[in-house]
């Protein structure tokens, strides 16, 4: 996620994941009774997709 001292695209996506995670309790867009669990599942899938990218990027380095 960091290459030659700079944050890569995957690094920025991880920052997005982190920010969306810690702001979940105050996120106004999921303040509907159907949405928090759907949001969690969506974030989980986003996390897995990003993990697949990160592990591919890091593999062999």
């Amino acid at each position, binding site marked *: 996620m960091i290459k030659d001292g700079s944050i890569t695209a995957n690094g920025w996506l*991880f920052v997005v*994941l*982190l920010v969306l*995670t*810690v702001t*979940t*309790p*105050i*996120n106004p867009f*999921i*303040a*509907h*009774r*159907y949405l*928090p*669990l759907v949001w*969690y*599942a969506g*974030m*989980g*899938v986003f*996390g*897995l997709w990003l*993990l*697949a990218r*990160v*592990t*591919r990027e*890091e*593999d062999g380095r």
Partner: protein
Amino acid sequence: MNWSSPYYIFGWLIVYLIITAWVAWKYSTGIETEEDYYVAGRSVGPFANTMSIVATIASGGIYLGTVGFFYDHGVNFLGYGFAYILMVFGLWFVGRRLWPVGKKFNYSTPQDFYGDFYQSEFLRLFGAVGSIIFLIPYYASNAVAMGAILERFAGLPYVWGVWLLVVFTVIYTTYGGMRAVIYTDVLQGVLLLIFGIVATFAILNAVGGYTALMDALPAKQTVPSSNWPAYGLFLGWVVFMFSHPLTLSDRMTRMYTIRDLGAFRTNVLLTGGAILMMVLIFALLGMASYKLVGPGMKPNDEAILQAVLRHAPWLMALFVVVVWACGMSTMDSGLVGADAMLSKDIIRRYIKPDISDAQLIRIGRWAMIVFGLLAAWIALQRPAGIWALVRLVVMFHMQFLPMLILGLYWRRASKLGAEVGWAAGVLIGTYYTFWASGPPPINVGGAPGPGFFALLVNLVLFVVISYLSSPVPAANRAKFEEAWK
């Protein structure tokens, strides 16, 4: 048919135990070296390693206590789940550096790394002794849960349930070491996921589906609260659960057991997927239990039991078997972990450096029997404060997190910073768990409260002292960097 008949439930348990014994016997072959016994010869494939991580994370109380937390707090407990989304990144970044040094230097315990990397006998010795001391009550708590559940549902006296768990687990773990642990974990992990999927469909069907469930629940269950206690709970659980698969002495060894880094990549992805599914199962079961049995059920783990008994009684026998499987999967891993630390970090390091692998394994087997007896003795007292000890074990191991991650990725990390930060974290966390009259100054509340604050102090001390003192010597660090290339 009487699905709750004690004979029927006990019959299922016996079938499960026979299959477990067969799996342990079948896969516990070719154990000749310490590496075979403690880290399964570093030969485990990604699926087996994944199921082992999942089953070991799932302790005996997970289908009761964790589901109970969702019953109490609804979506406000989702910090628990977000922790695991982030944890798999930690697993990858720690594991991809730990696995090569483990293979190069023949590591099989966390203290192998901490002691060698920081050149610190303090971390090696006190880390091992502390981990052993805290792990024993941890797996004793599983024996307490198993004794209680068999007493209630299979009509067996509590004492018999405790002894059945301890004796059975000690026998197969002593026989097959980490191989037996991992391959029985595959069975246990698959069982817990299959049960979860079936139970979720059955219970959701009973409440009329997802939208009907969410419509019926009060807003405090379905919409995250943004006030401080709720946010503290969220944040505290994120950190609490993020750290424990990475730092608990027995779980961390799964980063040594995998066969290579390519397999490890698949392993972390499968782990992320399996845990995501597991958390959704727990959340839905907990919230549906709220709808089915109503609020105020005490203790909270009674809610899911009542929901299954009333609305899916045909699942009760499998439920008891799964709770039992979760308890065994945690206890067997703890036994091997504690044994490895005693044998390698203490006996081989300080008492008999020239001990052969065969002698070490023999002593280790006896040690496991003693640890099992100690756990049984604790469980037989049915101690009221056992769950505080469980919180303590996670709090204690959380304190390894800064030295682990910063040691692997920060060149300024110093021995003094690691030692002082860790010791201060453990002392502060223990103080606020047992003796303090009030909460810590920064309090996220609940079980993670003491450990979270202690971790903050630990981290600050680690960073500040590392800046003020000499980092790990370049020659020592170079040995590790060579392995990371």
